[in-house]
């Protein structure tokens, strides 16, 4: 097996991985950094982010407001020390991106502009039209080319970590073009592999978002935290799940049911306003909007489309010129994928799985409990999203914690000792043997797609916008059955070079593990909070028993072992989440109560 020696390996070339690589290269130009990615970095899923990235910048905004929006938006399950660090560093990262060439949208005077976003109490979302993720990713990727110490392994697929003497010391990857294995010997590893949205059937995520890194860390005994919190985005296209950005509503779009009625006013999100108003109506948080859709669908007030039930997103009143300037990608997507001109007709939308709030548990500075392993970006749970992520916090997170991870891992790499090379080789060979076994199995039965779709369907049924005990239990059982059938999955392709069927099978192995962690964590959280809403006797938030993070630990051939961890609460004690007119009432009540 070929061996590559490095000081630091970063797995993932999305926003988080690239930011980490640049930070490490700047922190210590002498470090040999290897950046491993299963797609060429600019193809990573970050490219699809549309709406924008948070950072306090206007005069009426404060760090405290961003902190409060994030903690309340996360239904008090966010770690407040992590959120504090986060909000203090978002803006400098946005400025840094600007210096690196990101084409942020501008005001007439040449200053950068910000827009409103769901759950944010004032405009603080930096945007580059409606292609923010695209521009951030290309800016980061192109900037990373300045640093000669970053060695890219594009289209290399990471299969497993190497753990020796209790420390993570590298990984094994497959060179996709040839199917050859390589051992990457590294003193520290940063996991930046993105979320796991593809374990659900209808989702807004790219095909690469299969939770590989989450699964890898999990199998090595690192806890997965808060996996039950899966964000359903309220506005995706029925069928394909393609996202229609929240920026549409930030710019003033309306959501109406089949009677043309702005139904959100019936779900405590009113009063009805005609201009975009923070935290009100269409700018309520995602979990609440998705839940409102669910009720409308139940009540028979949704629109019938060939690809399922939907509501209408109206942008017509914004006018064609504004749509072209602010939402060009949405305009284009609606035209090609639906044959609709959004300046003239509404866009049918419905909720789809969008974001993995949980992930690899780290401390507030990206270190996992496995020495030498760091995690950042959507695969991680640094603790800032709690039970519901606010839109535009995640692109900012990639930068803030990508940088922290890069610097922390660089420090670790400088001091770490290496173990016996022979022991690492032996491990790597075992990894290779297991991966190759998928190719030589003779008794294969189920097609890969059969198992993948069955997983997606059962997750959607049991771990939906609303959940109950029976449904979640059924999903847990079904996943156990699928894991068993996975051992005898049939592959058509037994060759090595660019065998994407084989890689998809390895991904499915990770996905089934991660799906199990999600389903069991959900079943055992016997309360309702943020994106985890139950219809059984646990319909209310229960701070007494569940103001805690779930930790899921992997066990071979058994459901995960679950443990709980206190939430870090520094200065904002748990309270009720308020949106719509309740926000103002609460604010004026609070003011009235001041001495």
């Amino acid at each position: 097996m070929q061996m590559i020696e490095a000081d630091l390996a970063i797995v993932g070339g999305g926003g988080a991985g690239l930011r980490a690589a640049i930070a490490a290269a700047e922190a210590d130009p002498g470090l040999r950094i290897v950046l491993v990615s299963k797609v060429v970095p600019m193809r990573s899923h970050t490219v699809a982010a549309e709406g924008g990235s948070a950072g306090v910048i206007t005069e009426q905004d404060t760090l405290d407001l961003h902190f409060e929006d994030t903690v309340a938006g996360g239904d008090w399950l966010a770690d407040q020390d992590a959120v504090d660090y986060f909000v203090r560093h978002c803006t400098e990262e946005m400025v840094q991106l600007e210096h690196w060439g990101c084409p942020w949208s501008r005001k007439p005077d040449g200053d950068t502009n910000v827009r409103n976003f769901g759950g944010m109490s004032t405009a603080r979302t930096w945007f580059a039209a409606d292609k923010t993720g695209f521009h951030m990713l290309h800016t980061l990727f192109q900037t990373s080319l300045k640093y000669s110490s970053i060695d890219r392994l594009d289209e290399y697929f990471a299969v497993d970590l190497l753990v020796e003497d209790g420390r993570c010391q590298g990984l094994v990857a497959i060179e996709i073009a040839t199917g050859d294995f390589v051992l990457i010997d590294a003193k520290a590893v940063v996991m930046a592999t993105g979320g796991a949205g593809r374990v659900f059937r209808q989702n807004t995520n790219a095909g690469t978002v299969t939770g590989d890194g989450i699964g890898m860390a999990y199998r090595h005994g690192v806890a997965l935290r808060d996996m039950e919190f899966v964000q359903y985005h309220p506005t995706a296209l029925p069928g394909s799940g393609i996202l229609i950005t929240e920026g549409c509503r930030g710019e003033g779009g309306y959501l109406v049911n089949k009677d043309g009625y702005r139904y959100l006013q019936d779900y405590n999100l009113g009063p009805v306003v005609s201009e975009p108003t923070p935290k009100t109506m269409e700018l309520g948080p995602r979990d609440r909007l998705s839940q409102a859709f669910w009720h409308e669908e139940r009540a028979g007030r949704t629109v019938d489309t060939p690809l399922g039930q939907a509501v209408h997103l109206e942008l017509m009143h914004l006018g064609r010129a504004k749509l072209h300037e602010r939402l060009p990608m949405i305009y284009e997507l609606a035209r090609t994928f639906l044959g609709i001109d959004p300046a003239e007709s509404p866009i049918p939308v419905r909720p789809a799985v969008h974001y993995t709030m949980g992930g690899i548990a780290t401390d507030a500075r990206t270190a996992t409990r496995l020495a030498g392993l760091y995690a950042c970006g959507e695969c991680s749970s640094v603790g800032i999203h709690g039970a519901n992520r606010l839109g535009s916090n995640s692109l900012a997170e990639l930068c803030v914690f990508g940088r922290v991870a890069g610097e922390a891992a660089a420090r670790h790499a400088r001091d770490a000792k290496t173990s016996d090379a022979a022991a690492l080789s032996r491990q790597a060979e075992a990894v290779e043997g297991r991966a190759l076994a998928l190719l030589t199995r003779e008794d294969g039965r189920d097609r890969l797609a059969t198992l993948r779709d069955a997983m997606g369907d059962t997750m959607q049924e049991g771990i939906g916008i609303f959940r109950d005990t029976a449904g979640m239990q059924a999903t847990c059982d079904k996943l156990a059955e699928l894991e068993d059938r996975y051992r005898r999955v049939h592959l058509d392709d037994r060759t090595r070079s660019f065998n994407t069927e084989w890689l998809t099978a390895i991904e499915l192995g990770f996905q089934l593990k991660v799906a199990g962690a999600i389903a069991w964590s959900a079943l055992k959280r016997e309360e309702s909070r943020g994106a985890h809403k139950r219809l059984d006797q646990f319909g209310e938030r229960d701070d007494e028993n569940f103001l805690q993070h779930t930790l899921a630990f992997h066990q071979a051939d058994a459901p995960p072992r679950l443990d709980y961890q206190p939430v870090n609460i520094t200065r904002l004690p748990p309270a009720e989440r308020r949106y719509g007119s309740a926000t103002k009432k609460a604010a004026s009540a609070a003011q009235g109560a001041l001495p």
Partner: protein
Amino acid sequence: MSDSGREIEIEVLRYHPERDSEPHFETFRVPFAHDTSVLEGLQYIKDHLDGSLTFRWSCRMAICGSCGKMVNGEPKLSCHTFLRDYYPGKLRVEPLWHFPIVRDLVVDQTDFMEKLEAIKPYIVRDEEKPVSEGVYRQTPAQLARYQQFSQCINCLLCYAACPQYGLNSDFQGPGILALLHRYNSDSRDQGQARRMPIVNAEEGVWSCTLVGYCSEVCPKNVDPAAAVNRNKVNSTMDYFLRFLRPRGASS
């Protein structure tokens, strides 16, 4: 759906480096609906008919640039091209022209990546401004000077369309020259002088024979042909400037 039950024939180029000495075509029948993309057609084949069919894709929303293929001889993003538009005829899907084939519909993009790395596609400054001093001012008009050229998703369709690149892959090609122009036209950048040798070289703008097909196939309206042309002007100016000033003198 009213149009369910329709089927279309897709002819796909197959090539496996471990067992084929040359490529051949294979035909599949694929059911489709009004909104089924060519990419979804290929995914149907892979899921249900032949798991060994190999192609790249990721975002399925026309932004990651992974899924370019030749569809009936035209370079297209397969996620953004719909089967309905070829029915009742059939469809021939091939890998992007002008690149070496790795396997089936997957091409080797190394040449493009090396060119991308070589043009310094990042802001170059004589002196960096500290982050603590805030953002550079850039008016909407200044942004508009390069915005179009910053929309490139590196999908390589323009390379598959470019006859010059087909003849000689040393030519930088439309996408790269558009990206180079993007940085040269950015009010924050001071790196133009360092990029001009690439523009001026024989493989730079002067290889272009003004076919313009690159701009026609670009899915993001980048208009790389316009970038190449503007650089021809810049390159000419650069040539004459050399006679006006001793080398090395700063402007």
